[in-house]
């Protein structure tokens, strides 16, 4: 990972066509401006990770796996009267 320090108003170029500018820094939050060709998607990393998790979750499951997990959840739910996190 390349690490660069920038101040508000400064920017970096990625290749010829992508520029990232620090527009504002307010407390712990940085406002970024990104110039890039429309063909390049720009997504928050949480969205990318969610996409990966969704794809992993969309695999076919068997009826047995489904009913087995459901049964375990019902047992877990009924035996746990307070916090489900252990």
């Amino acid at each position: 990972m390349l690490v660069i320090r920038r101040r508000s108003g400064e920017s970096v170029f990625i290749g010829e066509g992508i520029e990232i500018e620090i527009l504002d820094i307010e407390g712990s939050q940085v406002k970024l401006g990104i110039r890039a060709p429309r063909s390049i998607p720009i997504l928050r990393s949480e969205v990318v990770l969610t996409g990966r998790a969704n794809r992993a979750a969309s695999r076919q499951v068997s009826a047995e796996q489904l009913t087995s997990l459901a049964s375990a959840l019902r047992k877990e739910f009924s035996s746990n009267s307070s916090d489900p996190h252990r």
Partner: protein
Amino acid sequence: MPDLASTGRIVTFPHGLPGFEDQRDFIRRDDPAFAPLVVLESRTNSALQFVAAPITSIDRNYELTVSARDLEIIGVSYADLQQDSSLVDCLAIVCIPEQGSPTANLVSPLVINRATGIGVQAVSDQTRYRIDQPLRPQEQSICS
């Protein structure tokens, strides 16, 4: 997947789901055989199905974080939601791997307007919950 004969409710995600941006319409299948889990089956591709769980069946004290934009998409106001949390159905997509423990995504729940069936996957940036919350705590997943 079992042959699900029960008629289901339609759920529509106007913006699809991350990774499945073109998938808008799903049928929600409920069945006592696999309750509390539900199955969301794509209307355009019946082979595409997600298993989901009501989030309170995983974490009774779950605190929902949903952006103004996502509330706008599903047509529920923040004020109304504060007053009545049952206005929305909150589901966590469940991943049942071939090997290893099943997990649930508590970071990006499906939030569905109960009255209209319009939903969104509310991707939050909070770090309190896991994208891969183990569902069977007694079997620790390898990656936890």
